[in-house]
């Protein structure tokens, strides 16, 4: 149980999928991206609303998200389609960022290629060739130490902190025990239990970064006129039985187990360290931005704990939905993969719930499609932004 079957990349990383990604460099290339992806077997389109007229820090963030997503080990080949050659975030800039991975990369510029129809033709021809090259690659055994396992929660309810999240924390510990790494983002949800995280920090610098990260996110919210802490827990949280912010936050951070926190990452930043353990990342609670930041950091697989039954699914990072709410599972079973509500009905123990999540992570890493993948639900690519469009 300490291995999975993955696609070994030229740079030594291992993907759990062998995706052909058609990536939009700018909002104005989205339709070309969609046409190319629709024309080629197995191609995954990623489109977005950014990459043009952004303030400099936002354009850097857009580039980090796009380059990181293309560099994700689950992507075997990428065609980047661009139009404006926005300085600092051109298709060539992204290609240069991704080049060290050694994967198949091509760029298409709509104007440079002779316009919309020519760009669709050019992109389709390249993508079809890439698809055939990828089809020759086969899975081979890799140690779990190669896995960067992401974890997220959304539409949390009373059951989340008691069943899906702790089951996930147990699964994360098993991955770490096998040499892997676990990553959690959403630092808005650490408020009130920073001490639990800082006690696990591998160094004082990591502890300081955790506290500063939460304060920074809080300050940004305050600057917008919102006090995210003055209203925490929210009225509906309290009606649901949550008494204090520390109770709410503890439920959220239980997605990780008690292993040391090795590194604090900026949003969408790839870990610089490779030792087993927990990793945490600055970022918002917004699910699509959060899981996109983890995919851009290199996570090959993610569990999404959801009391309410979320539909979130990243286009290139399999997103396993886990719920502890039986009613949500019944309502949302089209896209929710795992039901661990049996812990409340004397059907399974918490440890067994952890085993179930771990087994599902391994199965999906080996190629088993998540429910959302089977439905080609590609809904959760979103780029975090700081400032206005200009």
């Amino acid at each position, binding site marked *: 149980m300490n291995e999975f079957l993955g696609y070994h990349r030229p740079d030594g990383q291992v993907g759990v999928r062998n995706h052909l990604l058609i990536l939009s460099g700018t909002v104005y290339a989205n339709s070309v991206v969609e046409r190319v992806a629709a024309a080629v077997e197995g191609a995954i389109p990623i489109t977005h609303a950014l990459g043009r007229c952004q303030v400099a820090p936002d354009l850097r963030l857009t580039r980090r998200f796009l380059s990181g997503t293309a560099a994700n080990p689950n992507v075997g080949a990428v065609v980047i389609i661009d139009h404006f050659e926005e300085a600092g975030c051109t298709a060539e800039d992204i290609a240069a960022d991704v080049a060290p991975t050694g994967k198949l990369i091509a760029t298409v510029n709509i104007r440079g290629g002779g316009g919309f129809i020519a760009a669709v033709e050019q992109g389709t021809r390249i993508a079809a060739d890439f698809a055939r090259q990828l089809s020759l690659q086969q899975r081979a055994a890799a140690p779990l130490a190669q896995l960067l396992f992401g974890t997220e929660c959304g539409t949390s309810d009373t059951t989340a902190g*008691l069943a899906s999240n702790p089951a996930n924390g147990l699964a994360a510990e098993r991955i770490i025990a096998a040499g892997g790494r676990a990553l959690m983002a959403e630092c808005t949800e650490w408020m009130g239990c920073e001490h639990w995280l800082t006690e696990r920090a591998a160094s004082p610098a990591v502890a300081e970064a955790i506290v500063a990260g939460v304060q920074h996110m809080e300050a940004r919210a305050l600057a917008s006129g919102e006090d995210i802490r003055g209203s925490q827990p929210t009225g509906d949280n309290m009606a649901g*039985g949550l*008494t204090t912010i520390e*109770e709410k936050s503890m439920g959220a951070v239980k997605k990780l187990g008690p292993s040391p926190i090795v590194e604090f990452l900026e949003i969408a930043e790839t870990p610089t360290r490779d030792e087993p353990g927990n990793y945490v990342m600055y970022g918002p609670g917004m699910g699509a931005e959060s899981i996109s930041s983890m995919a851009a950091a290199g996570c090959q697989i993610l569990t999404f704990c959801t009391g309410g039954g979320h539909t979130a699914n990243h286009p290139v990072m399999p997103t396993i939905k886990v719920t502890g709410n039986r009613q949500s599972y019944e309502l949302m079973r089209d896209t929710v993969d795992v039901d661990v509500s049996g812990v409340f009905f004397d059907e399974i123990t918490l440890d067994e719930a952890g085993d179930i999540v771990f087994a599902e992570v391994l199965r999906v890493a080996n190629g088993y499609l998540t429910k959302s993948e089977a439905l080609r639900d590609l809904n959760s690519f979103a780029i975090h932004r700081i400032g206005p469009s200009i």
Partner: protein
Amino acid sequence: MKTIFVIDASDNVATVVVAPLQRGDAVRTNGRITDRQLTALDDIAYGHKIALQPIERGATVQKYGLSIGRATREIQAGEHVHTHNVESERGRGDLRSETAKGETR
């Protein structure tokens, strides 16, 4: 018998997760403490907490093996535990010491 769920063996509260409790209901625990029996002293809604043991005024209310606040009055085993008898010790100006460094991201 209705069940209540304990997430850490060191906790002094459990959560109502199967069916709401009515005053006088006999209940038993599952989760990290199994088959401890007690009687509900209040009506307690789904998702809310019940005291597993007496908690003195000022004492730590513990869930997840950690403090989720302190009791603002004495709480009996079987009582509803919520904002009427627990207060947060976090996120309060009088307890804050660190200040943001003003770094930009």
